[in-house]
C-alpha cells in the first residue's frame, strides 16, 4: 500500500462523504420511520453516513496501523494515562450524583495511579481494589431526572441525545486534556487519545458490522440502552426493562402457535411495545433501508425524501 494510493483513496472517499452529506442535508430532515425517540432521523442518518465514511477513510486505517505498530503494553500505558486523567471528573460527577464513596474511590485511584502508577500509565489502583467507574455530565443530568431528549448524531462525535450533548459541553469544557497549554502537546494528546479509543473499538465495530441488519438503527438503540444502563450504574429499574412477557416467550417449541388464544397475549404485546424499542404504532411510512446496511456506502445516505 503506497502512500500515494492511500492518499488518493482518502481524498475520493472524503469527497464522496461530503457529497453524501450535502445531498442528505438538502433532502431535509425526513423521519423515515417515525420513531418518537428520533425525530430528526433524516439529519442523523446523513451525519451517520458522514461519520462512517470518515471512519472508513481515516479513523479505522489509522487505528489499525496504531494497533499493528505500537506494542500492546505501550497501548495499555496510553489507555491508562488518559483513563487516569478522566478519573478526576468521574469523581466530580459521582459526587454530584450523591455517591461520595464512589467519588472518594475515584480520587484515590487518581492519587495512587498518578504517583505509584507513574503518571497514570499503570493502573495499580484497580489491583488495590479501587474499581474504575464510567461517569460523565450527561449521566449526572440523567440521574437528576433530565430525560434523554431527541437522539442526535454529531459529526465526528457520533451518537448523542439533547441531554448528553449539554453534558458533553461540560465534559469537554472541563477536560484537562482540552484545557492543556501549550497548543502543540495538547493537539498531540487529543489525537493520541482518539486513535487509542478507536483502536480499542476495532473488534467491537467489526462485531457490530456483522450483527446489525441496519447499522444506524442498531447503533442508535444500543446507544440509548447503554446510556440508560449507565445512568443507573448497570441496574436500571426492572419495570422498564425490555422484559419479554411469558406469553411471548413460546413455552415450548411451536407452543407459540397458541399465542392468539391466550388471554394474556394482548396485554403481553402491549407490555412488549412499551418496554421495547417501539413506543407506539407509528404511521407506516415508506422506508428504503430494509436491505442490510453495508459499511459506509454513501449511496445509502439520502433516505425518506
Amino acid at each position, binding site marked *: 500500500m503506497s502512500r500515494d494510493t492511500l492518499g488518493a483513496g482518502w481524498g475520493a472517499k472524503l469527497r464522496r462523504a461530503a457529497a453524501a452529506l450535502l445531498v442528505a442535508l438538502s433532502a431535509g430532515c425526513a423521519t423515515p420511520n417515525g420513531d418518537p425517540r428520533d425525530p430528526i432521523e433524516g439529519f442523523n442518518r446523513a451525519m451517520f453516513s458522514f461519520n462512517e465514511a470518515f471512519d472508513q477513510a481515516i479513523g479505522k486505517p489509522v487505528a489499525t496501523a496504531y494497533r499493528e505498530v505500537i506494542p500492546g503494553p505501550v497501548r495499555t500505558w496510553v489507555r491508562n494515562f488518559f483513563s487516569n486523567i478522566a478519573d478526576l471528573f468521574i469523581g466530580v460527577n459521582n459526587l454530584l450524583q450523591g455517591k461520595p464513596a464512589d467519588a472518594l474511590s475515584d480520587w484515590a485511584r487518581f492519587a495512587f495511579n498518578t504517583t505509584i502508577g507513574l503518571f497514570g500509565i499503570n493502573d495499580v489502583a484497580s489491583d488495590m481494589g479501587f474499581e*474504575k467507574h464510567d461517569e460523565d455530565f450527561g449521566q449526572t443530568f440523567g440521574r437528576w431526572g433530565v430525560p434523554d431528549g431527541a437522539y442526535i448524531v454529531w459529526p465526528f462525535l457520533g451518537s448523542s441525545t439533547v441531554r448528553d450533548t449539554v453534558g458533553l459541553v461540560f465534559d469537554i469544557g472541563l477536560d484537562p486534556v482540552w484545557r492543556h497549554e501549550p497548543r502543540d502537546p495538547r493537539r498531540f494528546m487529543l489525537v493520541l487519545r482518539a486513535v487509542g479509543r478507536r483502536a480499542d473499538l476495532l*473488534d467491537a465495530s467489526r*462485531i457490530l458490522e456483522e450483527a446489525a441488519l441496519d447499522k444506524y438503527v442498531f447503533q442508535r438503540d444500543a446507544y440509548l440502552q447503554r446510556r440508560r444502563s449507565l445512568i443507573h450504574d448497570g441496574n436500571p429499574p426492572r419495570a422498564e426493562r*425490555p422484559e419479554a412477557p411469558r406469553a411471548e*416467550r413460546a413455552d415450548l417449541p*411451536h407452543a407459540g402457535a397458541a*399465542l392468539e388464544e391466550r388471554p394474556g397475549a394482548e396485554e403481553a404485546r402491549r407490555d*412488549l411495545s412499551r418496554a421495547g424499542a417501539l413506543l407506539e404504532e407509528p404511521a407506516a411510512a415508506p422506508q428504503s433501508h430494509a436491505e442490510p446496511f453495508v459499511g459506509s456506502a454513501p449511496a445509502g445516505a439520502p433516505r425518506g425524501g
Partner: protein
Amino acid sequence: MQSLARAAAAFAACLALAATARAQDLVPPDVLVKNVTLEVVDIVKKDKDIQAGDRRKVIDLIQTKVLPHFNFEAMTASAVGRHWAKATPEQRARLVEEFRTLLVRTYASSIAAYRDQKFDFRPLRAKPTDTDVTVTVRILQSGAEPIQLEYDMEKRPGGWKVWDVRIAGISLVANYRTEFDNAVRNGGIDGLIKALQAKNTAIERGPTTAERKS
C-alpha cells in the same frame, strides 16, 4: 414377547431421560453459566486452530457447548415482538433458524476477540423458588470499567435456559426489535426472513466483502 422387550427398552430410555432432566435441573443457573464460560474459555486458550482464526471450529464449539443452554424460540419471539402472532409455523421456524445462525456467527466473532480477560462471576441474587433469574458476569480489563454480561434465564423442563443477554446494559433481544419491526413493516415477515438470510450470507463471505464494496 419381542414387543414387550421393546416396550421395556422404551420405558428404560424414558427413565434415563427423566433422570438427566432432573440432574440438569439441579445445576443452578449461576453455576451453569460459570461452568460453560470457563469450559469454553479453556478450550479457546488451548486450541491452536481457534487462535489462528479457524471460524468453523469456533462455531462447532458454540454449537456443542453453548447452544443447548439457549432458548432460541423465546429469543426470536421476543425480538420479532407483536409480529410473531401473525407468522405461520413455517415462518417462525425459518425466523428462529436464521436468527440463531446470525447470533452464533456474531458470538463466534466475540470469542475470536477474546484476549485473556479475567471473569468475575457475581453471586446470584434470587430465592431458591425463583424460576426467572438474571446471572451476572463481569469481564475485568485494565484501565477500563468492567464489562457487565447479564444472562436472563428461565427454569424449564430441560434445565435453565437463557432467553436474553445484556452486554454492558444493552439487551440483544431489545436491540433487534426495532430493526425487525422496520423489516416487517417494509416487506412483511418474509421480508425479514430474506433480510436475515442476506445478512448471514454476507457474513459467510467474510467481513472484508462489505468493506470492499465501499
